Each structure stands twice: as C-alpha cells, then as structure tokens.
C-alpha cells in the first residue's frame, strides 16, 4: 500500500481504485489528467472515489495519487466578491485558464495568493493570544473589514507581529513557541468550525419583503425552508434576500441550478447598492455557482464549501446570511452518487442518511459566541424543489423537521401573478415569540398586535371565501363584504410586492408597519361610514384610496403615507356624509 494506486473501475463520477493507502474523505488526484476526487468508501484493498470532474476517456490502470488532505477551502482576505464553482475554484480564473467552456484537470487557488493587503495588527508583542482570536485587520472591501484570526490549534504569546503590506502567505506574526502565522488558513469543509456556545436568536433578519418580515420573520441565526414547485418564485425570493437582507455578509450558493440565472445574478449584483451601506452589494457577497450541468460530485460539495466560508465570517463576529438554491439538487447529487455506490436506498431512491445530512447542514446555522468572544450568526435559507410541488417527498419533509420558518410557495398564487407567491395560511415562523420585544422596542409598541389583526383577517377571509364559492359575494351581509374588501387590500396592496420595481422591491420595517396600519385604519373608518349609511361601493372607491394603493410605487412613499391615509379617511367620512 502506498499513496499511489491504480484505477480498477469507472462508472460515471464514481471510480474504484486498488493499491492505495487512503483514509475516508482524503482528496486524491485521478488519472493522467489529475482530476480531483474524494475518497467516500473503503472496501478492503479498494477505495471508492467520487470525482469532481467528467470522467469520460479515463481508463482502468491509470494512476491515482493520494494528497493526504481532506477537502478543504482556503480562507483569508480576497474571498468577498468572488464567484466560485463547487470546490472553490474561482470561475474567473477558470475562464482565463480554459476559456468559456469548463474542461477538466485545471487547478486554481481559491484566493489570490499574490495580492497585497494592508495588514493592521490589533495585538502587540507580549500579548497572549488563543485560537480564533483576532490579531489584526485588513480592509477587504470598501465596506467589510476582514479580521485575521489565530488558526485553530495555535496560540501563545506574540513574539513578533508586523503591520504593513503583505500577501496572504507571508508571515505576519510569530508566537513564542515558534508558530508562524499568515493571513491564509485552510479548513476541511465537512467539519463545522468550533465556537464557544450557541445563543437563542433575538433579532430579526430584516429583508424588506413585507410578507416575510411582517408575518413570517426569520431571526438572525435562524433557519428557513422555501419549498415550491417550479415557476413559483423560489429563486426570486432567494435573490431578494441576498440583495436586501440586513446581514453583513451574504453567501449565495447556486447549487445545480440554471446557468443563465447565475449569470443574471453575476451581472446584476455588482450594479446593486446596499440600502444599509450605500456601497455595491457585491462588496459583502461570496457566490458559489455549480450549475445543473456541472459535475454532480462538485454539486454535492458546494453546499459545504459555502457554509464553511459563512462560518469563517461568522467567527469574525459578522451576521452572515446563507442562501442555498436549491437543496433538492444537492440531495439529488447525494442520491446519484449513492446509487452508483449501489447503496441500499431509502425513500424514493434517496440514501438513508439524507435526513441526517440535511440536519447537519442546517445545524451549522445559529447565533454564537465565537472563540474570540464576539457575537456572530449564520442564517440559512434553503430552497427546496419538490417534484410536482408535492411537499410530502423526502427532501421537503427532512427540511421541515429542522427549520423554524416555513415559507410555502403556492403555484396557484404564482399563476395569478401574486408574488411573492407565499401561501399565507400554511406558512409559519416560530420566531415571533422571541422577536416581539425587539419589534416593540424598535418599530412600534403595538407591532405584534397589528400583525395578529392582519393575519386573523386573512384567516377570516378564507372562511368567508368558502361561503362565497357557494352563494356569491352579494349574498353576504355588508360587514362581511367589507371584511372581504379589507382582505383583498391586504393581499393586493401589502402581501404582493414587485421584486422588479425600483421602489416596491424593498420596504423598511417602519413603512411595513404604516402600510399595515393604513389597512386597519381603512377598515375602521369604512365600518363607521357604512354604519352611518354609506354604500360599501362608494367607500371602497374613494379616489384617495386608489392614491394610497398606487402610491407605494413612488419614491418617498414612507413620508407621504400618513397624509394619504388621512385623505382617504376624510373622503370615506364624506361619503357617509353624502348619504345622509
């Protein structure tokens, strides 16, 4: 046995090797072209390898070399604004090396090893430092300060530390025990990075999407699942979150999805301005794009690559949001590899370990006390693409058992072009209870009560709709007809939000609250007017109400909304007056 073996069998991305001395998850180089692979099974003398590149043309007998490393990512300044494939090769470098088509056998460093950064130490000679502690900073992008940390397993008294211009591999700090530290670190992607403890989330991840923030909020450090059939808007929601959520770092994993969609993200993001910092959004973003026709084994790895990078920024004390679109494609990659291994399948051909892999992945989310004592978080939002939109399938079910927020997408709503097509009756969030105090302190003291009123109106509407289906809306008493109008207003004015409209695409929490309050105000005033004898039709059709509804597409709506509501209420009162 040695670190070199030879190929015995090739079946798609799965290659069997004999005569190699390998540990599980060792990274190996396969064949004459040195394709990257990973050991996933051992059978006596034979090692089974999943290969991250296309295996056509490889023959039995070609050699395989064990690198002895496990699948790792490189961590350091230069990660932000990058676009990687599933195994952290920058797509831009791949283009330079092999042109527009991705061929194989090409290596590329995850970060630029030559680029010079301005390193500023924050500890001094003689200070005692420990694993995970910040020893200095680098301005990585305009908005993000990269905090260089002591790698895991290192620690001691600082013997020498240098400020100034360095590339990531140069030694910037020496410890008394002789350890030399550079800005560059490596971390095996399949192992979660350690932290001191997990806290309960208590701050919302504000996304600017009304239905999400207002009715089904996600906490910083929380987990959410978005299952939905094709065409229901999963990807648009994921992209909206990547654009507008108030996380400091965004990791976006395009896992087994469309090439053109990734290109759209790649061309659009650099142009978008972060509403919180006023700088390009790309400054805080790392993207991983392993499209559906790129090798499945790399798709399997892409999710781990992404979450490891997210953990690294969490450890610096940042709030990180990670979007995975779509986890179903990840699960399918597992299924494909599992079936090539001829493993005994679980449900629908997925491997029996599917749900534990899903759970392990989502468990890497959370708000934590980092090793350096800072407070950082990872929020994970996973899209799920259930076959036929039926969420009784294993990936959806495995996800729903773990996540705390369920944003269920509905094909019927999408067909009516009600976007975001989130079904308001079946979706849920388990976070409001822990977040309510934050809303009271930061938005409005009666925020939770307004939310409850809005959601109960939607509930009442669905009950009334059942009657309407049988007898028509004219047969309902007038107060119930009003309720239907109010619910329609909630749906069309508040829940619907146009992601492609410059203004409507983002609503801050204050505006969300005012819009919800405007609806309740309409309900209250309309009721008074109708009690005073006004016709429902006249109340609903006052021109100022149309102004209020249409106004949300105009700049400065937040400042004008109070006035628009007052106008509407006045005209409604006048409508009642005119009747008498």
């Amino acid at each position, binding site marked *: 046995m040695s670190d070199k073996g030879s190929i015995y*069998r090739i*079946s*798609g991305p799965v290659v*069997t090797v004999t005569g190699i001395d390998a540990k599980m998850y060792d990274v190996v180089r396969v064949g004459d072209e040195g394709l990257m692979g990973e050991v996933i099974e051992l059978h006596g003398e034979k090692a089974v390898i999943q290969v991250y590149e*296309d*295996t*056509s*043309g490889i*023959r*039995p*007998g070609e050699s395989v070399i064990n690198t002895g490393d496990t699948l790792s990512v490189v961590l350091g300044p230069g990660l932000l604004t990058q*676009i990687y494939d599933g195994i952290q090769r920058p*797509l831009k470098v791949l*283009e330079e090396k092999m042109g*527009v*088509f991705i061929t194989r056998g090409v290596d590329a460093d995850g970060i630029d090893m030559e680029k010079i950064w301005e390193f500023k130490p924050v500890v001094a000679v003689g200070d005692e430092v420990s694993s995970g502690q910040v020893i200095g900073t680098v301005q990585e992008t305009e908005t993000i300060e990269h905090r260089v940390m002591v790698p895991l397993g290192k620690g001691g008294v600082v013997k020498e530390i240098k400020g100034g211009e360095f590339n990531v591999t140069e030694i910037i700090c020496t410890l008394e025990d002789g350890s030399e530290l550079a800005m560059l670190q490596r971390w095996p992607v399949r192992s979660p990075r350690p932290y001191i403890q997990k806290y309960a989330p208590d701050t919302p991840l504000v996304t600017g999407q009304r239905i999400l923030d207002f009715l089904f909020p996600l906490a910083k450090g929380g987990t959410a699942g978005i299952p939905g*059939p*094709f*065409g229901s808007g999963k990807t648009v929601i994921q992209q909206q979150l990547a654009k507008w959520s108030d996380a400091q770092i965004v990791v976006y994993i*395009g896992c087994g999805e*469309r*090439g*053109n*969609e*990734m*290109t*759209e993200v790649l*061309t659009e993001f650099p142009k978008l301005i972060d509403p919180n910092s006023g700088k390009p959004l790309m400054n805080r973003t790392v993207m991983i*794009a392993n*499209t*559906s*026709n*790129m090798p*499945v084994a790399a798709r399997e790895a892409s999710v781990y690559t992404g979450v490891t990078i997210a953990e690294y920024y969490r450890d610096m004390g940042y709030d990180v949001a990670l979007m995975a679109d779509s986890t179903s*494609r990840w699960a*399918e990659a597992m*299924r494909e590899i599992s*079936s090539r291994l001829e493993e005994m*399948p679980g449900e*629908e*051909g997925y491997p029996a370990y599917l749900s534990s892999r899903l759970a392990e992945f989502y468990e890497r989310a959370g708000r934590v006390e980092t090793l350096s004592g800072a407070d950082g978080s990872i929020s994970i939002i996973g899209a799920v693409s259930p*076959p*036929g*939109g*039926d969420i009784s399938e294993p990936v959806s079910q495995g996800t729903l058992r773990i996540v705390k927020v369920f944003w269920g997408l509905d*094909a019927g709503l*999408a*067909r*009516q*072009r009600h976007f975001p097509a989130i079904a308001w009756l079946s979706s849920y969030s388990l976070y409001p209870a822990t977040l309510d105090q934050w809303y009271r302190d930061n938005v409005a003291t009666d925020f939770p009560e307004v939310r409850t009123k809005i959601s109960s109106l939607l509930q009442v509407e669905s009950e009334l709709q059942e009657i309407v*289906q049988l*007898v*028509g*809306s*004219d*047969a309902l008493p007038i107060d119930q007809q009003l309720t239907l109008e109010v619910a329609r207003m909630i749906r069309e004015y508040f829940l619907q939000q146009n992601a*492609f409209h410059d203004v409507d695409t983002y609503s801050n929490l204050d505006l969300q609250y005012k819009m919800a309050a405007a609806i309740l105000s309409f309900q209250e005033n309309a009721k008074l007017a109708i009690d005073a004898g006004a016709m429902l039709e006249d109340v609903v059709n006052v021109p100022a109400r*149309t102004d209020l509804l*249409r106004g949300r*597409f105009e700049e400065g709506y937040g400042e004008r909304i109070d006035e628009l509501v007052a106008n509407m209420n006045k005209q409604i009162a006048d409508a009642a007056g005119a009747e008498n």
Partner: protein
Amino acid sequence: MSGKEYRTITDVKGPLVFLNKTDPVAYGEIVSLRLSDGSIKNGQVLDTSDDMVVVQVFEGTAGIDRKTGIQFMGDVFKLPVSKDLIGRILTGAGKPRDGGPEIIGEFNADIIGAAINPYSRESPEVFIQTGISAIDCCTTLVRGQKLPIFSASGLPHNDIALQIARQAKLIDSDEQFIVVFCAMGITAEEYNYFRHDLERTGALENAVLFVNLADDPAVERLITPRLALTTAEFLAFEHDYHVLVIYTDMTNYCDSLRQIGAAREEVPGRRGYPGYMYTDLAMLYERAGIVKGKKGSITQFPILTMPGDDITHPIPDLSGYITEGQIVISRELHQKGIYPPINILPSLSRLMNAGIGDGKTREDHKSVSDQLYAAYAQGRELRGLVAIVGEDALNERDLQLLKFSDIFEDTYLRQDRDEDRSITQTLDMAWDILTNIDTKYLVRLDQKWIDKYHPTDKK
C-alpha cells in the same frame, strides 16, 4: 488500442452488452460491434473495469450473439462538424439520410459538450418576436433562452413550433435564425409534416435536421439531441449564427433513458425514471445561451408531451426546474377551437423581464402583461363560480372580469397560423381588450401608462 477485436461477450441484456478480458477501455469510449452476418453496430462504454466492460448499443442488440466481434475505437463519441451541415438531413446517429455525401468535418467535436462557465455567459436580453401575442406579450422569448412547450397528445404543438420557427425575428435586425431540428422517436408522419413545412417556406435551406423516428433504435435517441446541440454550438460559437434548436419529443428521450436504466438494474427514481434524469436533462438544456466574446446564440424550444396531461409527471417537472419557463398548451382551449391554445396562466418566461420594456419592446409591456394575467386569472376563477350561482350573484367588477376572460381568449389568444403580429400590435390589442374593464379595477397598471396608452382614458 483499436484494431484488436474481442469475442468475449458474457451477457447481452436489453440494449447492453457485457464482456470481459479486455485491455483497459476508457469510460465513454466508442465501440464498434461486428455481427456474424457482417453488419456493424455502434455502442458506447457505460462502465469499465479490469474485469468487465458494459457497452450500450445504439442500434439495439438484435442479432448480437457471443461470437460478435467487438472493437474499441480509442476515443469518445465525436461528430464531424462543418458549415456544410446546413441544409442537410441526418439520421439520429449523424449519418446522411438525404442521400447526400458523408459530412467532412472542419474538426470532430465531442458530443457530450462541456458546461459553459457561468461567469463567461452573457445575460440573454434580446427580445425575439414570434408574432404570437400570447408568447410575445405574456411569456416573452429572449435570445439564448430555453423555453419548452409543454403539450400533450392530440394538441397542435407542432404547428406552434413551426410557426415560431417561421416567424421568429429580432425587431430591429434582419438576422435570420438557423433552425436545428432534432426528432426523437416521432412518427414518420409527424416528421414529414415538419419537413414539408420547412420545405414549403424555404426554411430547410437554413436548417439542419437530425431524425430518429419511432421505429429507429430507442438507444440512438440518447445521442440524437447531443448531435443536434453539438452542431448548434459549432454554428453559434464558431460561425456566429443565431441558432434555434427545436427538439421533439423529449418524452421519448426520457423513456429511452428509463429503458437503459432498467437494463442496467439501477435503482429507479420516480415512476421508474433514473435518479440522474435531472442532471442528464440539464446537460442538454443548459447548452442554450450566449457566451462572452461570441456573436452567435443558442435558443432552445424543446417540445414534450405530458403523459396524461399531468404537469407533475417527472418529465415536465424536471424540465420545468431546468428550463427558463414553459409554454403550456391547453386541451380545454383547443377544444374550444382556439389556436394557438396557449394557457398563459401556468406558462411563464423567466427571462422576460430582461427582454422587455423601454428600448426593447415598449415601456408599458410589463404592466400590461401583469394586468392581463391578473384579470384573466380572476375571470377564469369566476367561471367556476358562475356555474354554481349564476351571473346574477356577481357584482359589477366580477361581471366585467368574466366578460374579459372570454374576449381575451376569443380575440387576443386566437390568431391564424400565418398571422404574424408585431409587438406594437400585440400591446395595442391588449389595451383594446382592457377597455372592457373599468379603469379603477386595473390596479396593475401604472397611472402614467393609463394616461399615455389607454384608448379611452388617455390624457
């Protein structure tokens, strides 16, 4: 390597041949099988090891026995590509079918095709006018998109595909599309229909046809679309053509995939289709697009028939997850006598927003399309209600919406097979039919567009 002939077949099962005691054979290598009657079949290596090689035979295994000689060709499947392919009709395995000469390639291209680096793609955003209102206004096609037609048996999807192939153009350019047509398991009758139409309109001169008919070997179907796409890539990225790839019928392709899976005794996924069908389909569909630094483009129109009209069936379902939208053909509209019977509600073009608006189609396009969708969806819902409670129970707004949905189907969707509407006509017609609804109910329309375009409420 090549030259040596093996007679070591151990098993033959369905389209697969198993043999042992070979020199090392490459994964994906092309195989030539010489039968005892002297005829030649071709195949490809699906699994290879020191002890055993599995070969998938494209022409089926009829006539193969243990004495059949097997030769490994030392290379993966390649297609000779050349501009001379334009105007030719080839078999599903890439051999001339029109009696013309063999193709002499500029070079031999690997038919599997490498993935386009997402970083090297260019966003598709050039509007293609198909002249069909339902598509141009509501599910707009852009160059470089893959937009399948989800149809079912007995519906006029072929007519729609042909109409698109005939009429597709860019608004301010007279660049022509080259059509690459890929037939998989369709009947000779359907094929003749396509060919005659292409001949009639002169489009055949600007087309390449790959034809695998229903009685051709099922396994060959697995390579036919790859040959078509390899040709498309060559024409688009080596010779700057804008290529429209039409393939029909994807359902037959997927059934062949299932057949191979079953013969290999793989663990089946939903409804017996292999678990890797998503990836396999992606390897075809993802070969659409535009890349940086190249002038040409590939736009794909796969046609698939949904078994039992079921959109949740694995074939349309997995396709829908990969393609950039879908055009859904409705049996209900077809039975009402409406052509093209496109149901816009489940139809969608994901790239539409990039291809419409000021400077591309018209500034009001998005608003108009949203409003048509919303009004038609509500109108159709009301039809169900009216069936139960009658029109008397409806209020004014609902009555207008109900009427609108009929007018929409009757005048807007309906058009002749050779009626080519410009985008301006399409949008103006939309405003015309929207006059049947009171302006105050048109909440999806920006006020400024109403002021500018509404035929009666214009300011």
